[in-house]
């Protein structure tokens, strides 16, 4: 006599639960506490870690740019110039170096950075001279400035 219905009552829930769990736990092995061992705690921690990594990749670009700007400002102040003046005058002389490269030059190639700062300073003085002009009124205009000269 063989009892056949007993075997029908056993459910096979799936053969690869172990590997699915390991897929999540492998990303949690360097965490602190029970999150690195227990699956239900690890799932939540790993999800947060992935979300923070995604957001961090966007923030990294912003932070690096502010870091470069701070470094360029500090280096240009060593040469008696301010950061906005330096950048504006470099763009006016059509030098299209980006902030990352200018900050690297300021760190590793100080002489090249000095040459860039001098270029920007010369362009700044030219701009001031062009704006201030001769001190004379334009031709054909009669005013007390012309009267006094």
């Amino acid at each position, binding site marked *: 006599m063989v009892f056949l219905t007993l075997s029908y009552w056993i459910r096979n829930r799936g053969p690869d639960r172990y590997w699915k769990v390991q897929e999540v736990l492998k990303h949690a092995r360097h965490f602190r506490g029970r999150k690195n061992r227990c699956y239900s705690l690890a799932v939540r921690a790993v*999800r*947060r870690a*992935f*979300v923070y*990594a*995604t957001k961090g*990749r966007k923030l990294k670009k912003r932070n690096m740019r502010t870091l470069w700007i701070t470094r360029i400002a500090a280096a240009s102040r060593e040469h008696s110039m301010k950061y906005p003046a330096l950048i504006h005058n470099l763009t006016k*002389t*059509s*030098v*299209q*170096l*980006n902030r*990352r*490269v200018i900050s*690297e*030059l300021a760190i*590793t*190639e100080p*002489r*090249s950075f000095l*040459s*860039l700062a001098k*270029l920007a300073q010369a362009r700044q*003085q030219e701009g*001031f*001279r062009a*704006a*201030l*002009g001769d*001190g004379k*009124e*334009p031709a054909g205009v009669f*005013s*007390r*400035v012309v009267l*006094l000269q």
Partner: protein
Amino acid sequence: MALCRNVGFWRTCSVLLPRRPLLFSSAVRTQSSVSGDLVPRTSLSRPPWPEQTALVSEEEERSRHAAVVSTVNQKINQRQYGRLFAVVHFASRQWKVTDEDLILIENHIDAECGERIRMEKVLLVGAEDFTLIGRPLLGKELVRVEATVIEKTESWPKVHMRFWRRHRFERKKIIIQPQTVLRINSIELAPRLT
């Protein structure tokens, strides 16, 4: 325009005030008690912009420029520079590059592994004693930057995950980007400069 007018204002101030004592001839003393500045120094006595340094004459400027160009030309002709570095625009990024440098580029390049590539957009070339700054690029006859494609791989699988709590929103995507590794072989300067 406004600045021209304001310059006129500062100049009229400086011209007008010394004339005033002549009107009061009876009050003129033989020895003036105020020596030095005719105008008392206040916040509005001088213009807020710094005083202009003396202009260098055009011939002086041209001679200085010619001297600088000739020294740099001499150095390039006699190859007296040591190691050169260049700033190159490649794959929408700017790289500061020397000889024997490795560069990792996060996209696919059409060249095969082992092919030599010439990078044409050079923004700046520098040596120990001189720098050549391009406005914005340096000429192709002036600089030659050569590189070889070493490796074409894929990046490690980055996880892009978005999660909005209490809204049952969770999206997970694995991003694998193609990468190329280039080795910069040489940077050469041509001995010709105007």
